[in-house]
Structures are given as C-alpha cells and as structure tokens.
C-alpha cells in the first residue's frame, strides 16, 4: 500500500524516473481514494507549467515580477561597451 509520502516521491520525478506499470496502477488506485494527493498532483502540474513558461515570459517582456536593469547598472554597462567597441573598430 502506497502512502501519500510515497506518492509525492513517485509523482515528483515521474519524468526523470518513470514508475513501473505496477507502480502506475498503485498510484492510480491511491489517487482515486485520496483527494489530498489529487490536489497535490494538480498543484505540482500548475507550478511546473508556470516555471516552464518563465523564460518565454522574460523574452516577451512580461516577467515584471523580476526587477529590470537598474539605471546605474545600465550606465556602467553602456560605458564599458562603448569603450570596448571603440577598441574593436
């Protein structure tokens, strides 16, 4: 009989470490009976989906939850690049 803790282990690494068919059946039976583990699976899937979209959000300029380049840092980088670019030309 799988415990809820076992379920979290099996479900969390399902891609890296696929369960055997016996384990799959045991997981399904547990999920039928256990609402908490069903919710755990839904929560995990949502977080995974969100994390996987972060890079695209950054590229699209949507990730406003992450700080943007501060003005002083921008100026420092600009000066450095100008200097290097003159050297390269």
């Amino acid at each position, binding site marked *: 009989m799988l415990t809820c803790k076992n379920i979290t282990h099996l479900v969390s690494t399902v891609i890296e470490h696929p369960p055997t068919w016996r384990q799959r059946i045991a997981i399904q039976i547990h999920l039928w009976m256990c*609402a908490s583990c069903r919710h755990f699976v839904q929560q995990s899937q949502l977080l995974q989906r969100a994390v996987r979209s972060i*890079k695209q959000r950054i590229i699209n300029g949507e990730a406003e939850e992450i700080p943007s*380049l501060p003005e002083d840092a921008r100026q420092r980088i600009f000066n450095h690049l100008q200097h290097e670019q003159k050297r390269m030309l």
Partner: protein
Amino acid sequence: MPPTISPHFAATWLDEHGDMLYRYALLQVRDPHQAEELVQETLLAALEGYARYDGKSALRSWLIAILKHKAMDHFRRSHREVAMTNDEHEVAPEQYDETEFDESFTAEGHWRQPVSHWGEPQKMLEASQFWQLLEQCLQHLPTKLRQIYLLREVEEESSEKICQEMAISATNLWTQLYRARMGLRRCFVNHWN
C-alpha cells in the same frame, strides 16, 4: 548575410534587450552584481561574435543563448570554488532543512494537513501575485538546488547533461529535484491565500 558592425549596436541592444537579459540573469544567479556582470559579458560576446550571427534565430533568442552559456561558466566556477572548500562531492543541501517538507507528513506517511484545491489554473496564471510569489519562492530555494531545478524545468536539459554538469549521480538528481519541487510547492502553499 550578417550586417557589419555599427557603433550604435551596443547602445541599441542595451536599450532594447537590457531588461530581458538582466531578468534572465537574475533568475539564474540571484545576486544583482553578478547579474549585471553576466549582462555585460553577454553583450561583449555578442559584439565580438556578431559576424557569426546568421540571423536564423531571433536576436533575443541568440542573446539569451549566449547568456545561458555565460551563466553555466559562472556555475562551474562557483562549484569549483565550493569544491575547494568542501570535501563533499554530492550536492550539499546547504542550509536546507530536510525535515521542513517531511513535516508535511505524519510518521505513517499521510498528509498532516489536507491538501486543498487551488481552483481555476488559468485564473491563477493570470494573477500578477501568482508570478511574484513564484519568483520569491524560487529565490528562496538554496542556490544549487535552484540551479539544478532551473536547468531541468526552464532550460529543459536532459538528466544526463545535468548530472554531468553538476557532477552528481542520477539518484542524487532525483532527490534534489524532489526537494526543489516539494520546497517550491510548500513555500507557495504557505503564502498563497
């Protein structure tokens, strides 16, 4: 044919892509100074390598790919530094307390508190608080754990590649990913209302 280099490139790239590169760098390294350094190194490498840019991928993707390589170099350097001061070869859980998420379960392995239903996923993904909390919870993970987790989920690197880069065994990788996923979810559950 790739355009020739113009003196305005650096300024234009910094204007148009500076925020994007800095956010991506911050996601990787967390420290603002290191993130700034990564953006600078990336733009320098882009200037130097612009003749090799074939224009097939979008400029943003090309710049991100350069930054990703710079970030990997940064990780390797920092791991070497850690390795010199630390005899352990396996990834140390650092200050991360394993009992923190084990506390979720009773001794018999049942949930101590019922896991609640979150409601409509699409609604959550549209809320700015969702992304703010996700960002905070990612930053809250110990550095190595976060690096491994981001390599897997954000970069979608293969397990083999991550094990090689981080010099860990496959079993250790599964353990680290489990910890990262449980830690992230737990942080989220504790702060999401």
